[in-house]
């Protein structure tokens, strides 16, 4: 009698739990549908398009063209180079900045963080045009520099690789600083005290303890910056002056000038695949660090 009633009870509880799970799933349904509509279907459509030849046949034509034409290889190389340099510059500028922020008292750090974030909240287009105004031949920097007598000819600061890198680094910097700052803030100051107590000078304590512990944030930030750079369009298009051609620009020309959706899609697919491979590699490194306890 008693055993029977407990069994009934258990079955009822199980059904309750099942119903609860269904209810939770139904709550996430609208978001799921949205993601499928605006992400999965278009990406799948592009993927499909990239395998359709100009004549409307199913073929690898676009990919063959990508592999055979040297200009495409050059564009991919430039894209990766520009992304790599931008990421390197962001690390060079961002690491000391994040370190400084992490060492500041909380309130001061919050104020300085706003200074880092402020450009982040401004339109990329506005900031890019601002850099154009600063860097061009008759721009602010060149006219000041020449007036002060630092240099006599206008420096070629924009419409080339350096202009592209300056603009992209500026726009990408917060993406690196934010995760890095978070990861640095999570480092217990006892670790550095212990390092010092065990005989590590401040410099060695930094290299042996602080840097490895901040690595998850650095890897995450660098991965975000690098991947965003791979698909960046507005800033390199305006500041590169046509001399620095990235994959994103080639996609734009293919569509705007040649209406060749297949070719553009193939470029997009290759870029997407390369990005995913990189993201996977980065996550392996970051995961490895977390496994070693670096996240704490």
């Amino acid at each position: 009698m008693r055993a029977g009633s407990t069994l009934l009870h258990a079955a009822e509880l199980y059904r309750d739990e099942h119903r609860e799970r269904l209810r939770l799933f139904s709550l996430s349904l609208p978001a799921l549908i949205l993601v499928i509509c605006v992400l999965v279907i278009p990406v799948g459509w592009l993927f499909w398009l990239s395998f359709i030849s100009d004549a409307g046949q199913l073929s690898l034509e676009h990919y063959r063209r990508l592999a055979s034409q040297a200009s495409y290889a050059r564009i991919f190389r430039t894209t990766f180079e520009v992304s790599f340099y931008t990421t390197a510059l962001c690390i060079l500028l961002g690491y000391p900045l994040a370190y400084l922020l992490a060492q500041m008292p909380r309130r001061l750090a919050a104020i300085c963080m706003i200074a880092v974030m402020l450009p982040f909240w401004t339109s990329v287009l506005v900031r890019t045009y601002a850099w154009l105004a600063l860097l061009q031949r008759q721009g602010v920097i060149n006219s000041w520099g020449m007036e002060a007598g630092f240099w006599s000819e206008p420096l070629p600061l924009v419409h080339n690789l350096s202009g592209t890198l300056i603009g992209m680094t500026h726009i990408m910097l917060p993406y690196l600083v934010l995760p890095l700052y978070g990861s640095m803030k999570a480092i217990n100051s006892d670790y550095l005290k212990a390092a010092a107590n065990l005989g590590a000078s401040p410099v060695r304590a930094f290299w042996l303890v602080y840097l490895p512990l901040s690595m998850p944030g650095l890897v995450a930030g660098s991965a975000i910056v690098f991947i965003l750079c791979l698909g960046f369009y507005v800033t390199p298009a305006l500041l590169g002056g046509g001399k620095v051609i990235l994959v994103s620009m080639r996609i734009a020309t293919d569509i705007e000038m040649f209406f060749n959706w297949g070719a553009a899609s193939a470029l997009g697919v290759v870029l997407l695949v390369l990005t995913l491979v990189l993201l996977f590699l980065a996550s392996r490194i970051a995961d490895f660090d977390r496994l070693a306890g670096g996240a704490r």
Partner: protein
Amino acid sequence: MNQGAALPIKIRHVTKSYGSFKALDSVSLDIRSGEFLTLLGPSGSGKTTLLMVLAGFTRPDTGSILFGDREVVRVPPHKRDIGMVFQSYALFPHMTVGGNIAFPLRLRGVNKTEIARRVNRALETVKLGGYADRRIDQLSGGQRQRVALARAIVFEPSILLMDEPLSALDKQLREHMQVELRQLHESLGMTTVYVTHDQREALTMSDRIAVINKGSVMQLDTPSRVYEKPSRRFVAEFIGESSFLPVRVQGGDAFLDGQRLKLDDVPGDGEYLLMLRPEKLRILGEEQKETQHFNLLEGRVARFIYQGESFVLEVVLPSGSQLTVRDMTSSSIMNSLPQPGGVIRLGIDRRDSFLIPEERP
């Protein structure tokens, strides 16, 4: 592992203020070579600040600290060459157990084979042989504590600092580690400064205890003297339980509510407190008459609390003062106990009747 000769520590007039708060107020303390000294005090008493000053993480406003003959106030932490076990253990999560213990040796340029040998020996010392390749997050709290200890002693420092190293462990493990730490100290012989707020831990482990409150040393003495003969009310209250009864000393005699007390030594005239430890009070039966060894007290039982191996009685004296009495739960005592509300006669040995000066707050 006895090469690192122990060093005495001399602390002279060390003061440290944070704004108007004096964390350390002209602290002077001599720690003997090879001694296990505990800094005991409530949180915010300055005991941790003093340890941080010794480690070099906090610079005092004034004062001097000598390790042996070496003045260290201006020596940065990484050049002090002292071991430290942190409350959080601070084991580097990106290194293995062996990597953590090898860290101080690597910094000192010890060669690889010697490092391996000493890491293994340190692991054996803390009974974690074979754990060198484990990751830190695979260890239990007690094992982490041992690794932290191994890392602090592997480079044979002459001074070892410990900041509440057992506070994160559960009670059983803590008591076990107290004994083990004490044994380790005896075999290694380094001067050890141990910070805790746990009075029992301090009493169990220390050669001497420095009771710290409000940035000053209240009393520096052996565990038994700190417990039996506290120098002031704060010490008596912080360490162990005690009841206090007001006593007036006049012309060489001490009076408690008009009753003359038998004391071993009577201090000068003034207001005092008779300190009564609950376990030192004896419950006397009807037949036991006044003796010359006991001071007698009579009151009524207010409450009986059963605590397993012992019991506690709360007793109210005619003057209104309250006392606590503790005794073992043996049947002979339990059967003759008066009920709550009943009259009870208590005796305290004259050698345990100890007066401490009344402090006006």
